[in-house]
């Protein structure tokens, strides 16, 4: 079970409408189990992270990046959003990381080899590379104690990492460290030598912990340098951070990056880390410098990139009009990345009319999911969603692939009035229309295309006979004040979305459908699904080890969620990204919607 803190952070992720990253799994298991089918991963012949060449880039040059929004957290102990990841994964080296073309086959990064898992699944051992040094002013070699400190500081209240409670809770001493919240070492993380770190677990959850080792939380942090910053509340280590990756945020001799290389709301400059050695890394790092300009209008940015040269946009939601223009006139400048999460309609399982499962099924049956996906850019940028584990996540294929579980309300992608009527009658409305007299509250998110989603859903509800009170709010308000707050008893939240922290099905289904994880605020089990059988299956699923076994176990849970019509799925998203005419951009499958600075080059 995850902590409230993690839930809150995860909610923010979803709140920003799929801005968060998906991370890869560790390589401790041999079976991929992704089960992604070719159609779901298709980019329609356009560039995709799956078909980009990872070699042969030209060295040198400066890349201009246009970001509409600013970074949230550049401290590796706190980074959470995909926009942050693009910088953190260029400047820091977690134990494991993904190459751009995968989200499931992690590569040892700060680690020298895959994690070693004990037979009882209660111990994970990782060996570190030698010869990796910090950027100035620290300069010294990285040791395993730095990794232990990096993870322990995540439990420090001054940093408050959102992942640690979710994925490292089984590490011995983590709950105690988290409750002490003063940055004390975690008892279960030991460093027998300078290049070995061992995780002792209280439960057999080695698989989940191993997969979580690619989170930026595991990037080393030098205690003797960072400790003074970590004593501040909140820690201001981000403003003085040092790097282990190919790049570092431009700094002065004291290590200060704030107002030197990073001007909040204005710009960020990445330069080469002079202490980085190519021989210790698998990333080519072609570019000499990356200059990020922050601000401006998304629509204008799209045009600037299409007409520009050494420039890319990193705004995850490229406007539909620019994507259309790119498809029609700038084909070589468009990249389409699959696996960008899912969008579904949260219906209140606990209160109001939709407590009745048959009403939920009726809504599902009547919904024209093809229309919803068309409003999101059509087939090139979406797949109609039929269940909850999405493409690129293990368990997708086992749960039915693109077609999903075979239930009649899931079969008709364009909606089916007869099936809807059947379930309306089963729900106790013989006319096939809702006559309960209760006005239902629909709260959606403003903006394109979430606004269109919400309006289509609202019209579908009206067609079923419901009187609705329909409201569109800023995405953050929608989540924080209403959809994330069970006591508000919102009946329908049509604009919610989810993307995994890393490619494990538990990260997709557990927090969003496990009744045990419903919390009063920052709740992301939006429908308040609380089915005993499901809860038990998910608790058992947490301890399943082996990627293939986990994929199968969670696929069954996915099917049960569909059978409960706990929510109504409509879109598996793909992200369109734009690059300038002279850019050989490489996007990340694991950090959908972002270019990877470690692999991108100029023509």
């Amino acid at each position, binding site marked *: 079970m995850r902590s409230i803190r993690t839930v809150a952070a995860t909610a923010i992720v979803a709140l920003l409408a799929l801005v968060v990253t998906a991370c890869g799994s560790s390589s401790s298991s041999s079976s991929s189990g992704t089960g992604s089918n070719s159609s779901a991963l298709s980019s329609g012949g356009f560039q995709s992270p799956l078909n980009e060449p990872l070699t042969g880039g030209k060295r040198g040059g400066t890349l201009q990046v246009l970001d509409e929004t600013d970074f949230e957290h550049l401290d590796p102990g706190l980074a959470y959003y995909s926009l942050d990841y693009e910088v953190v994964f260029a400047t820091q080296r977690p134990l494991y990381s993904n190459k751009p073309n995968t989200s499931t086959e992690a590569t040892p990064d700060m680690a020298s080899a895959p994690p070693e898992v004990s037979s009882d699944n209660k111990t994970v051992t990782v060996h570190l590379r030698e010869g990796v040094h910090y950027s100035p002013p620290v300069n010294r070699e990285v040791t395993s104690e730095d990794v232990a400190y990096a993870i322990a500081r995540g439990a420090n209240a001054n940093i408050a990492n959102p992942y640690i409670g979710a994925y490292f809770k089984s590490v011995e001493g983590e709950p105690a460290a988290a409750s002490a919240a003063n940055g004390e070492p975690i008892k279960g993380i030991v460093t027998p030598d300078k290049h070995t770190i061992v995780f002792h677990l209280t439960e057999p959850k080695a698989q989940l912990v191993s997969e979580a080792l690619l989170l930026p939380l595991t990037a080393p942090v030098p205690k003797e340098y960072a400790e003074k910053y970590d004593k501040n509340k909140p820690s201001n280590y981000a403003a003085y951070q040092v790097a282990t990756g190919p790049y570092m945020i431009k700094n002065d001799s004291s290590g200060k990056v704030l107002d030197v290389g990073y001007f909040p709301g204005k710009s960020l400059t990445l330069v080469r880390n002079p202490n980085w050695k190519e021989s210790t890394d698998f990333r080519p790092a072609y570019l000499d410098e990356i200059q990020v300009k922050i601000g401006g209008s998304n629509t204008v940015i799209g045009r600037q990139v299409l007409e520009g040269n050494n420039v890319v946009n990193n705004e995850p939601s490229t406007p*539909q*009009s620019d994507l*259309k223009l790119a498809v029609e006139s700038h084909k070589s400048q468009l990249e389409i990345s699959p696996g960008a999460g899912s969008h579904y309609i949260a219906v209140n399982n606990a209160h109001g009319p939709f407590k009745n499962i048959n009403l939920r099924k009726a809504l599902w049956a009547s919904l024209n999911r093809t229309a919803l996906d068309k409003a999101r850019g059509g087939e090139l940028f979406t797949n109609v969603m039929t269940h909850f584990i999405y493409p690129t996540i293990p368990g997708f294929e086992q749960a039915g692939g693109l077609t999903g579980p075979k239930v009649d309300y899931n079969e008709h992608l364009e909606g089916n009035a007869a099936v809807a009527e059947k379930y309306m009658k089963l729900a106790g409305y013989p006319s096939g229309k809702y006559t309960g007299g209760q006005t239902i509250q629909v709260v959606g998110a403003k903006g394109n295309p979430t606004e269109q989603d919400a309006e289509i859903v609202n019209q579908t509800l009206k067609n079923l006979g419901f009187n609705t009170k*329909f*409201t569109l709010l800023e995405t953050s308000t929608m989540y924080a004040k209403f959809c994330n707050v069970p006591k508000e008893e919102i009946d329908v939240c049509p604009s919610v979305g989810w993307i995994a922290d890393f490619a494990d099905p538990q990260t997709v289904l557990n927090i969003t459908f496990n009744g045990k994880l419903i919390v009063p605020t920052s709740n992301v089990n939006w429908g308040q699904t609380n089915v005993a059988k499901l809860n038990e299956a998910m608790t058992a699923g947490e301890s399943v080890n082996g990627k293939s076994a986990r994929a199968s176990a969670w696929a069954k849970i996915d099917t049960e969620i569909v059978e409960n019509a706990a929510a109504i799925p409509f879109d598996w998203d793909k992200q369109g990204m734009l690059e300038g005419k002279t850019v050989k951009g490489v996007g990340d499958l694991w950090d959908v919607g972002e270019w990877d600075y470690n692999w991108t080059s100029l023509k």
Partner: protein
Amino acid sequence: MSVGAAELLPTPGGGVELEFFESETDVAARTPLQLFWRRFKQDRVALVSLGFIIFLIVIAFAAPLVVDILGLPGPNTQNLNLTDSFGSPLGPSASHPFGVDQLGQDVMSRVIYGTRVSLEVGIIGTGISTLIGVVVGMLAGFYRGWVDTLLSRLIDVQLSIPVLLLGLGIGAACSVRGCLSGLIQPGLGVIIFLIALATWPFMARIVRGLVLSLREREFVDASRAMGASDARIMFREILPNLAAPILVYASLQIPLNILIEAALSFLGVGIRPPTASWGQMIASATPIFNTAWWYMVFPGVALLLTVLAFNLLGDGLRDALNPRNAR
């Protein structure tokens, strides 16, 4: 004793203006209404504006009929088949003269229905703000002293609050459950409440200034000498003399209020979808203007023409009711 307040128009000199027109046979005094109409009908721009506003009112009342006659789908009828493979809306055609939006909703149909919202907000909002402004202004101007001080400071405070920021705040706060125990409902109710709240001080200031002048006039002294109560003096003697300036100011306030509604809807705290509102349509069109110009242009033109018509009508009314201020 009243001197026939309906015949009075306040003038800068404080006198009563009467006009006499000679005919070939005799000299006849015209009623104020006749005088007004005689002047107003000479202003062709104002007449055209009046005609356009009447047209809008007819359209607003008969929107379902008009849409039906034109063979258009209803304003909330979604048809994603009318978008291309990227979900971009299709442009003007014979069956959809103003094109469609991202949901395949007919833009012309929504522009027609949007007239209702604009006129409702413009007229009802202005009516409420005028009522509040007149009452407050009369009380302040008539009683002077501490009442005037108190109300004038209240007006000053109210005028210092930016309308759009206030709108954004209240709109957001009342957007889901409403406010004041449901008295103010999200959508149109919030907008009208906001407009009334934000614009009454302008009317109050004007009325206060006029009342300060009128209360010193002989007909008020005469009425007071005959034992009339304060309420009678205010509402039976002074108020009729304010009819013309109130009418003129209110007519100029209507387009401002229509624009406030459009701005708030543009900012997303106004009319709630699927109800059609021009401001909201313009907001929705902004991200796709490059590929769907029609979605912004037609509601934009409707808004422009409506505001222009009310402004020109207001100018015409002002000129006709107070020829000394004529352009």
